[in-house]
């Protein structure tokens, strides 16, 4: 896990994914492959469906059509083609880790217990084992001194770093980031992006929805551009940012630069 994975194993496979909210199509026949160890960033203007796409991957949103496989296991629908029972769904979900725009820490638990809660009560780890792992992760995200603090005493950047540690504690096969820096004050964005960059260097498979262009260019193996629910461009970052094939992306990048 800690070396850049060069295998061609598929971590996430999305096929023909469609989703509507109240008759408005937010995702239209989306196909996406994410290989193990890859960092994929999803760009697009707001309302383009990128958060919905991410939230479909761990079934926080249920797509209308299409399929999603995580490490070869289909999520949300069982072999008989029926909706998955909640326990089974929870097991597949646990193979992904998610970081939310608004952190979503549990305010009644201190930082350490936010991180150990799911490993103990979902994975069945012992308290000692979970805490030892949690302290390692806190070290990694630079939050060790705050292990005993409660979420309401932390800054946004600190909360998000704890949220990243919480997701990592489940040892997920793929990390999902839903605009992880959009709710942060500008001066706090850097500390969170730095942590995510470190994770990419360690070979984690990650799908990141973001507005941070420089970050996307620096960490991505693949950049995906969504427009009105369609993937209109999918390329390596060099091509995407210097020589996009569509007019829509060219305009988007111009606007971001100005």
């Amino acid at each position: 896990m800690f070396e850049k994975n060069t295998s061609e194993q598929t971590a996430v496979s999305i096929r023909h994914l469609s989703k509507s909210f109240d008759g408005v199509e937010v995702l239209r026949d989306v196909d996406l492959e994410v290989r193990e160890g890859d960092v994929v960033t999803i760009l697009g203007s707001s309302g383009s469906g990128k958060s919905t796409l991410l939230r479909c991957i761990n079934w926080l949103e249920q797509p209308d059509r299409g399929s999603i496989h995580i490490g070869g296991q289909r999520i949300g629908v069982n072999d008989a083609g029926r909706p998955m029972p909640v326990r089974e769904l929870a097991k597949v979900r646990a193979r992904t880790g998610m970081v939310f725009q608004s952190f979503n820490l549990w305010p009644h638990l201190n930082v350490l217990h936010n991180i150990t809660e799911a490993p103990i009560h979902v994975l069945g780890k012992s308290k000692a084992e979970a805490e030892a792992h949690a302290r390692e992760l806190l070290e990694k995200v630079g939050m060790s001194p705050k292990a005993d603090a409660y979420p309401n005493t932390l800054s946004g950047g600190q909360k998000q770093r704890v949220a990243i540690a919480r997701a990592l504690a489940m040892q997920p096969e793929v990390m999902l980031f839903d605009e992880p820096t959009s709710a942060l004050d500008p001066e706090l964005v850097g500390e969170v992006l730095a942590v995510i960059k470190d994770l990419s260097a360690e070979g984690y498979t990650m799908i990141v929805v973001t507005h941070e262009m420089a970050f996307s260019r620096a960490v991505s193996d693949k950049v995906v551009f969504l427009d009105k629910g369609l993937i209109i461009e999918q390329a390596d970052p060099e091509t995407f940012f210097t020589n996009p094939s569509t007019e829509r992306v060219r305009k988007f990048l111009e606007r971001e630069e100005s």
Partner: protein
Amino acid sequence: MNASAWHMLLEGAWTTVWISGISIAIGVTAGLILALIRIARIPVVDQVLVLYISLARATPLVTLALFIFLSAPTFGINLDRNVAGILALTLNTTAFNAEIWRSAFRNFSREQREAAMANGMTPWVTFRRIMLPQMMITSLPGLINEMSFLIKGSPAIAVIGIVDLTRVTNRISAVTYEPLPPILVACVLYMAAIGCLVWLQRIAERRANRLAV
């Protein structure tokens, strides 16, 4: 007031405390269970519960206590008056508590639930580990309010012959011809009981501050 009057008063106070205490304990738990059943929206069961909750909230305690105590023999049940009293108080308070719990559940942060789901928690683990501990703190002001209503409404059970803290003052003054001293002491004891609850509420509020993210 002589020693025996004091003795009677304390006995009356104890009756009020244990009958109310049991009713509160059952009522808080049963209220939570009813709230969860209502949230599950099971057909028929849901309508029955809605009917029960509106009936129980609309019936005066005295009437409810009398009804339970007097109707029991018709069903061939020989109901102890203390049991009938506890039943009346419990049926009443459970209905109010169910609504308090239900609103705490419905207002619970969607973001926090999503974080629990994303971490692989089943709905049951999410409820037990993430929601319930916070619902207990956010519901406590409402629940404690309801507890103090129950204690203040508990003299209603005297109507079926239970000698509680209020009823006993009558008995004492029937002997001493001085109604004021026992009733004053009773007031102080009621205030002490409510005071304990308010003190509990303060502690809960201090802990609730932490939940404000």
